[in-house]
């Protein structure tokens, strides 16, 4: 501690001597991820960490990454979006239906993105302007949008999109499957926006304390609206890539991603001391989910037991970081 100089006349601003401690992250969740990787590597040496399997894990988590990134944005502003999953389903199905109906691929993709963005904007209006709790509002849109997805697909699975559409989900670039490339781009983009732009700052400020942000001149409503809209857009992107990957659009293809995305973001929040949502953390969370899933499969663990273990390991990871926090 600075010597007794903190009097009025002599400026007493202690130097920031240890900037490292200021980074304020705690590795509990990251340690959990590394432990999982180590465990599976030891259990199946040469298999788990093989190039093929790593690529496989990456492509299994690619779409989750995109949807979790969308969820991260909403959680940065302190809200939830329960509709990301059904929104992805609907947007993907809408694009597929249009393509099957003869709309050119690019136009159909844009239309799908527009659908998702529109759903996001509606969430934004409900939460930001009509002041509904994000939970009810997005629960309701989740239900509605899920119903619309059933209607668009007529309850069945749509297929038979043009060949060139398959590139989005099944092509590859520099040896990486396209979904992985897109996931990396989306994560990078959202990371940059959250960290380096004024809109990212505003999102964090609104998430920190909306009233303080408002009194500091942030237009809270527009900021929050934008977050939901952006989440809608990226959910749609995730849904469309999924449809391309499967060459088919079922009536509930991406619905499950909501829970997984929320889990990933929450896992990631434990990584920052401030407990905020952040892309780095979300990627770690996605990593835990993906590694666990793939590793347990490789070990041949029964699906039911996998489910049990997944829950237990998520809790373990979070407890690990809670313990670290208490020390500090």
């Amino acid at each position, binding site marked *: *501690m600075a010597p*007794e100089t903190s009097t009025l006349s002599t400026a*007493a*601003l202690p130097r920031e001597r*240890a900037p490292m401690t*200021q980074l304020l992250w705690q590795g509990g969740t990251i340690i959990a991820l590394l432990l999982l990787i180590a465990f599976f590597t030891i259990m199946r040496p040469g298999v788990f960490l093989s190039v093929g399997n790593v690529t496989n894990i990456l492509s299994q988590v690619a779409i989750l990454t995109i949807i979790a990134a969308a969820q991260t944005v909403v959680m940065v502003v302190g809200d939830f979006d329960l509709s990301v999953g059904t929104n992805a389903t609907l947007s993907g199905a809408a694009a597929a239906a249009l393509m099957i109906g003869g709309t050119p691929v690019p136009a159909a993709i844009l239309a799908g993105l527009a659908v998702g963005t529109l759903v996001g904007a509606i969430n934004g209006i409900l939460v930001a302007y009509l002041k509904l709790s994000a939970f009810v509002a997005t629960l309701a849109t989740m239900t509605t949008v899920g119903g619309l997805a059933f209607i668009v697909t007529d309850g069945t699975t749509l297929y038979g999109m043009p060949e060139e559409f398959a590139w989005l989900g099944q092509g590859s670039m520099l040896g990486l499957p396209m979904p992985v490339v897109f996931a990396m781009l989306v994560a990078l983009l959202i990371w940059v926006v959250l960290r380096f732009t004024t809109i990212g*700052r505003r999102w964090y*400020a609104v998430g920190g304390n909306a009233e303080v942000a408002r*009194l500091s001149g942030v237009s809270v409503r527009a900021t929050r609206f934008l977050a939901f809209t952006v989440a809608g857009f990226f959910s749609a992107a995730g849904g469309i890539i999924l449809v391309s990957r499967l060459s088919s659009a079922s009536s509930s293809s991406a619905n499950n991603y909501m829970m997984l995305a929320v889990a990933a973001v929450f896992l990631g929040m434990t990584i920052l001391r*401030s407990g905020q949502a952040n892309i780095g953390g979300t990627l770690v969370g996605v990593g835990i989910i993906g590694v666990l899933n793939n590793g347990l499969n490789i070990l041949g663990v029964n699906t039911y037991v996998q489910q049990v273990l997944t829950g237990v390991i998520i809790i373990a990871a979070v407890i690990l970081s809670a313990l670290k926090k208490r020390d500090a």
Partner: protein
Amino acid sequence: MTATQTRASAAPALEAHDIVKRFDGVHALEGARLSVRAGEIHALLGENGAGKSTLIKVLTGIHQPDQGDVRCFGEPVDFSGVRAANRAGVVALYQELSIIPTISVAENIVLGDRAPSRAGFVRWAELNRRARLQLDRLNQRIPLGKLAGHLSPVQQTMVAVARALGSDARVLILDEPTASLTDTEIRDLFVVLRGLRDEGVAIVYVSHRLEEVFELCDRLTVMRNGRTITTRDVAETTIDEVISTMVGREQSELYPARGTTRGEPVLRVEGLAGRRVADVSFTVHAGEVLGIGGLAGSGRSELLRLLSGAQRRTAGAIEVDGAALRGAGVGRALEAGIALVPEERRSQGVILSAAIQDNIAIANLGDVSRAGFVSQRRIGALARRGLEELRVKARGPRQPVGQLSGGNQQKVVLAKMLARAPRVLLMDEPTRGIDVGTKAEIYRLIRRLAAAGTAIVVISSELPELIGLTDRILVMHEGRLNGEVEAASADDELILAHAYGRSA
């Protein structure tokens, strides 16, 4: 409150010996001592960040000390938490922590284990009786069934005070209870505190209002940088002496000289009306510090909120440097050069979880960004400047604001708005919770800004501050302006007369 008081002479009610407490390498306490006797009111004084609140948290088991020990009536104690402390008769009202907004006033006052019950069922009549008793003691006429969240800030504080007073404590600790109260409530509180003292309760009283301390307390302990410097009988010392002990040197004049020049009109308000405010017109000139006085709930805060765009106005015009303010919202007002330092720092002033520099940046995004991208370097520089100017006691610009002492948090709010170099600076109770030394510094800063041409409007519930700091004072009564006095010729009585609605 039973017969324990007679044992007062035996052992001090509460003692702390050489307490050391560190957070992440910050030495919050480095050998703090305190000894409070039953039947006395003992002031705990020190600059912002001296360690007063931390000591209180150690005494009541919220923090465990790294070194040192605590004794209660001579017995060593090691409270595991607030409940353990309460069971031992040690009760505290913590700084800035008041009420539970979603439950009724009565339940807020008789909270938790103390709620009267029979077979697990709440005895509402008894609960109400007890709550009413405490409010009556404080002369408060707040409906018991009202949701506490719907009370004004002053009323919320009084409810929290009532809770602490009603706890049958043997040791009662109050951390800046009067920071957001006006004279009337303070007077009522003092009557109750003196009564408790006479019944033998040991009272620890933290405040930055030294006049109050000298009026109320029997002994005082001064802390500096986490250490206890001295404990004295109030009768044997003076305010000046206490101040120099607190800051480590002599204190110069508290209030700077008034301005001599009065320039062009900067802020002109015409027929302004909104929630709780009607028909307000006035003008503030460059170089002028305008004070706003009035009773709690008279609409002073609402007036500033209307001016700053935080609240929508229903009528009236606002002009800055001759240009009319159009549109609504804080953003517009800030662009026009009007900045507000709000009264409630925790809910309106700072994002507790965010770093100091991010708090400051959020109101200054234009200055720290280019083409939508922010510059970390500029954010850091801006924050550093503010921290130095206001002498914030912090580890650095990246420390989360929530880790700062109450007074230092307030300085961050000031820094945030000052960084905008506003044309009109509206300040609602700007020195609430700030130590005397820094107050003088802030007064000088306000004067400097005024001299540089900024129009300044200050609300203060401390009449000496209102009179000493400003050039001119407008007094509000029930949402309207009810008189104007020149500060140089004003006194408490004149201002209060206007405040109570009498036109002088």
